[in-house]
């Protein structure tokens, strides 16, 4: 009986706390609505939270990276100040749904433009041209072309386009290991359990430039594929697409684009491509 009472008390406590948080959430969003009523509303932009150099949520709750800089610039052109931007995490598999459901207005998250994705969302841009590349240990010079990979141990992220490229096109005989994130691969690379980590060069540069990894790794500098990054937005929203394209164009012309590239990729010695031509929506 005692046990039953304790259980009931616990259940009541849980229900109460749930309703309490629900209330909290409710009043919170009402507060947001209030500020919106005051004349200013927010724009929600999806970025990656876990990619140094591109989109990273820092321990103090701020956001840093090239994607973040682009998103901030575009938002400014659309009439939103930096404090009106709400960044939301957009993991790769969820990007289309976030846009289609209207959870985010834009997705700026290493989002490669391709036809399958265009069936569900529209893109603006591209704003950056990345290539699949390899990260190797700083003293390793044995990989100079894609064929060299066939005798190597590789690491990439489970199911990612880069991993699939290796399996189907680049080096089908390579010994490929797949992990949920790049950090696990870095452990293996450092311990010589794998020889190279492969994904877009821009992402790899971010890892190589991290304070704790300085001097340990380097980019092989191979251009194994073309990955034009676009800004994802709701399908059929031509008006927004045109505006975002115009913002990207302006960003390149006034030099902010180059500045963002230098600031985010410079430390890793990554040779970024010049700004790509805008191809979407014209």
């Amino acid at each position, binding site marked *: 009986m005692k046990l039953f009472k304790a259980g009931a008390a616990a259940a009541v406590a849980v229900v109460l706390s749930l309703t309490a948080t629900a209330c909290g959430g409710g009043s919170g969003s009402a507060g947001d609505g209030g500020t919106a009523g005051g004349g200013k509303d927010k724009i929600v932009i999806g970025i990656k939270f876990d990619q140094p150099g591109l989109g990273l949520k820092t321990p103090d709750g701020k956001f840093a990276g090239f994607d973040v800089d682009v998103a901030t610039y575009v938002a400014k052109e659309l009439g939103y100040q930096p404090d009106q931007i709400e960044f939301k995490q957009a993991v790769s*598999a969820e990007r289309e749904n976030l846009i289609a459901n209207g959870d985010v207005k834009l997705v700026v998250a290493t989002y490669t433009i391709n036809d399958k994705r265009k069936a569900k969302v529209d893109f603006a841009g591209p704003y950056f041209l990345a290539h699949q590349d390899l990260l190797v240990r700083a003293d390793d010079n044995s990989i100079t072309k894609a064929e060299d990979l066939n005798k190597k141990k590789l690491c990439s992220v*489970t199911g990612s386009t880069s991993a699939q490229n290796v399996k189907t096109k680049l080096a089908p005989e390579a010994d*490929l290991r797949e*992990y949920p994130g790049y950090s696990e691969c870095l452990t293996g690379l450092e311990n010589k359990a794998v020889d190279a980590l492969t994904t877009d060069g821009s992402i790899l540069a971010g890892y190589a430039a991290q304070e704790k990894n300085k001097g340990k790794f380097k980019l092989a500098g191979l251009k194994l594929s073309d990955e034009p990054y676009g800004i994802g937005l709701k399908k059929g929203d031509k008006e927004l697409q045109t505006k975002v394209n115009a913002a990207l164009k302006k960003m390149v012309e006034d030099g902010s684009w180059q500045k963002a590239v230098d600031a985010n990729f410079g430390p890793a010695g990554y040779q970024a491509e010049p700004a790509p031509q805008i191809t979407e929506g014209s």
Partner: protein
Amino acid sequence: MFDFLTSGQYDVLGAFWVTVQLTLYSAAGSLIWGLMLAGMRVSPVPLMRSFGTAYVNIVRNTPLTLLILGCSLGLDQTLGITLAGGDSKEIGFRLAILGLVAYTGTFVCEALRSGINTVPVGQAEAARALGLSFFQVLTLIVLPQAFRAVIAPLTNVLIALTKNTTVAATIGVAEAALLMKEMLENEADALFAVFGVFALGFVLLTLPTGLLLGQVAKRVAVKR
């Protein structure tokens, strides 16, 4: 909508075959390991009893992802223990089985122990009175009766194991869940169809198991 199935780009059956293999090897392994653990937990030697109890309580309450990732990152990547040679694919497969056996063995052990409790004490006492050793009492008298009582719970463990094999995708074993991730990356326009195919695949794997072993459980159960 389902054109990704016929495009020839994805080997869905092959991926599910790896899932089946993972399940079968792990099931065999965890049955053996679970039996040993159950033997330890009911043995008269205090050291073995406490080891069994400690192992079951610790491993059972550790997330499976942690165990399997620990096998791969800890044993392979950091310590260089690869469980015989081969390429990453085979190493990952074996390490995944190791993790699954370590984890599922605890559930098999507890199911068996509950079965042992269904065997009347008189059976063991009578066996001991005949002069049988502990090992003989366990293997000849108690376990055969215990097993027949726990077919149904063991079926649940087997079904859970089948689904748990998807965790092996975290260390890159090319089974169903990994293929699903690849397809989600590519087939942005058919998310629900992809999910549906894999959900159906797992239903097709587990439903017959449940039905078949349910019948077996009914047939062999000891009516007391």
